[in-house]
């Protein structure tokens, strides 16, 4: 073998590698019934007794103060479709506490130079509230009244009955609904004119609120207009101040907002004959699920595939928990869309405090329209639970984590609103149902 031949021999491995590269692939693909033996897809709707064992409602999740907004209502929910005789309408008041005033402002002096000025004289103020024009329920312009609270109260825990309602300490108001108050002023909110309400605060009140050690500082916003429920998104205290550098100029500055909360009455009782989600503090409905691994019906399924029919997680293309809406207390009926989610209760033994698994309905959750909960209601809402049901049948998540047969229906963001939604419970003719879409290969099925 000469040198040239050896050269060729050395080149062979390189050639082998070169020709072995670039192996991409496109399979021939055609649309033809000849090529596919399609499976069988069936839809089955199971009654609650076939997939669930228990449903109950827990309340008290979160606090009203966590909403960072408020409600103002008077005798709400007593209209023609309103409360039964003897029931009271909703009363709600928003509580605000403003904090430290600014210590200095930047002011343009007579020479035209911007300079900080810490010697301020506060003249008066304005409470400026932004109200939700969509969620608020009113028939026209509404007068909102601001009262100064005169009793010490706790922003996070105050309720209609108690000025302080925290663990180990309960201090009732001298009068339910904010105790003895002093009127500050009022303003009229016309939603057609915008979403802003302004109420003037006099200089004496402004001066008294400068004492941040005074725990009775605060404002209560209410209305005397019956049948009104307003949702407030935010409230600010604008102060007018006279700087020492340029006394001819009035400067507006913003005070801190220390607490925004709301108190309401009556507090809804736990439902006896319905499932409930939402509210503030929030309600959750907890269900124990046990989806069947073998189907014995319905007849239309058995006719196609034969029964009993064993099902596996992978055969479930879709599972939806069907809930029928109820119109309960109009005082708390939704006026805007609510979103709900369903999550696993990871430690059911310690309910209602059990931690929950991750959301299962995606970022958006299941969006519920408010009109579904107005009389006559009866709308069927479907909460997708495909992954949950698959996990329950599998006995573990796809990642191998343990599963719990107990799940909670809850508001996607909790608490979201004073409003809650109700569904028929398991004892109702419209009890929750489970809709399944199942796929089977040809020729499968039971018998025997």
């Amino acid at each position: 073998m000469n040198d040239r031949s050896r050269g060729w021999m050395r080149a062979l491995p390189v050639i082998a590698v070169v020709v072995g590269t670039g192996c991409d692939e496109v399979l021939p693909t055609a649309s033809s019934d000849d090529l596919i033996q399609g499976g069988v897809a069936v839809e089955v709707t199971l009654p609650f007794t076939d997939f669930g064992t228990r449903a109950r409602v827990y309340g008290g999740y979160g606090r009203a103060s966590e909403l960072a907004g408020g409600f103002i209502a008077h005798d709400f929910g007593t209209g023609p479709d309103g409360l039964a005789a003897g029931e009271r309408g909703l009363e709600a008041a928003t509580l605000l506490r403003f904090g430290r005033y600014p210590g200095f402002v930047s002011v343009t002096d007579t020479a035209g130079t911007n300079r900080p000025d810490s010697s301020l004289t506060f003249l008066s103020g304005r409470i400026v509230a932004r109200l939700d024009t969509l969620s608020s329920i009113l028939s026209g312009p509404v007068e909102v009244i601001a009262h100064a609270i005169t009793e010490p109260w706790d922003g996070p825990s105050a309720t209609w009955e108690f000025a302080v309602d925290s663990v180990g300490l309960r201090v009732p108001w001298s009068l339910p609904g904010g105790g003895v108050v002093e009127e500050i002023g009022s303003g009229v909110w016309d939603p057609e004119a915008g979403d802003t309400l302004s109420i003037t605060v006099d200089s004496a009140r402004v001066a008294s609120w400068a004492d941040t050690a005074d725990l009775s500082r605060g404002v209560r916003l209410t209305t005397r207009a019956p049948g009104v429920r307003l949702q407030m998104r935010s409230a600010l205290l604008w102060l007018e101040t006279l700087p020492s550098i340029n006394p001819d100029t009035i400067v507006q500055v913003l005070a801190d907002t220390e607490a925004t909360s709301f108190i309401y009455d009556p507090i809804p009782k736990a439902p006896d004959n319905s499932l409930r989600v939402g509210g503030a503090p929030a309600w959750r409905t907890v269900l124990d699920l046990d989806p069947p691994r073998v189907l014995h019906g319905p007849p239309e399924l058995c006719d196609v595939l034969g029964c009993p029919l064993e099902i596996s997680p992978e055969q479930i293309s879709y599972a939806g928990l069907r809930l029928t809406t109820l119109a309960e207390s109009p005082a708390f009926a939704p006026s805007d869309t609510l979103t709900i989610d369903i999550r696993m209760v990871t430690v059911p033994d310690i309910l209602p405090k059990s931690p929950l698994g991750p959301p299962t309905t995606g970022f958006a959750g299941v969006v519920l329209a408010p009109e579904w909960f107005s009389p006559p209601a009866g709308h069927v809402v479907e909460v997708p639970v495909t992954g949950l049901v698959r996990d329950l049948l599998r006995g573990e998540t796809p990642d191998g984590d343990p599963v719990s047969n107990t799940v909670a229906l809850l508001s996607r963001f909790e608490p979201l609103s004073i409003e809650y939604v109700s569904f028929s419970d398991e004892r109702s003719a419209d009890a929750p149902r489970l809709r399944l879409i199942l796929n089977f290969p040809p020729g499968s099925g039971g018998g025997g």
Partner: protein
Amino acid sequence: MRKTLLVLALLAMAAPGQASGQSFLGFRGLGVPVGPADGRSVALGNLGIGLGRAGLSVTDPAAAAHIPFPSVFVSMQPMWGDFQLEDQSGTMRTTRFPLIAIGYPVLSVNGTVTLSLAGYLEQRWVGHTARTVNLGGIDVPVDDRFTTDGGTSVARVGWSQRFGARFAAGVSAGAYVGRLEREFDRTLDSLVVGGDVRSYTEASSWHYGGYTLTAGFGADPHDLIHLAGALEWSGALKESPSEDTEGDENRYSIPLRLLWGATGRLSERLHLNTSFAYQDWSGADGFQPGVVSAKTLSYGAGLELQVVRRPTRGIPLRLGYRRVVPPFRYQVQDPVETAWSVGLGFNLVEVDGIRYGWMDVAVERAERSSAPLSENFWRATVSLGITRF
């Protein structure tokens, strides 16, 4: 050391050892046959038997009798094509390594041990349909997709025995091996059903088993003529479900195959070869009615011209044509595959007619038809081999 690395490189390339064809043909049977897979046979339109010169062939068991040194070669087949199925058309493309063969002469007894792994039948295609199913009184659009991917290969061990300078005989025993993956995937329209709709996937896996025996001869009754013949017998080809697949074992009978071929030297540089194969699938058991073809005879012919001839190298130019009858129909028409081919051999190191390092390249333009299916494709075959590693 370098040669060892070369052998390892060739073996690594061939490790997948699968077939090179993609086709809808035989979707109800066992697929489409892979056919000859070495560059020289392909270029000459040969069916894998009766080519003159010492060499390795999986279907010509006596061909290795005259190789004087250990030899190994592998093939690679890229393929590009398109198909027409009724009013649809589409493309297909793949690259596979359908063949590896090793021959190890035992000079003391004038014989050669051969080992090979060669593609035999292949099923690689995708079908899909868009249809509606009625669920709860609502028509729901669904998209069904069925993918089948795999095939059968034959692993053979053989012995070629030389009887003098002009006659040889060979036998080989082979085992069918291979795997087939099928996947049915159904996607429901989430806009109609609701959110969180999951695809339904049903996957199954099958593996193949069975045995085959081949016996053949090669003879040079004259300096200008080489003849060869082989008889290939197979037991039932068993298609068994894997552990995670439900189903019964299927058994398919593989009919006897007769091959014969001849090469004649027309001049010092020009050779003519012909080959024939007879296999009657019409009585084969295990297939659905109407699946197997009634056609039995395949044939091919080709010319090899030594365009460059040096003391240690040579470059033959090859032309060929073949017409083969695949065993399984698309619908009712017996399929036919025809191919024109051209190729070059690069005998990189050739001493006294023995190739120590070579590369055979072939390009085919082929078409298959079994109404309403027709397929056209280009296929290249590149074989690399070395001797005396």
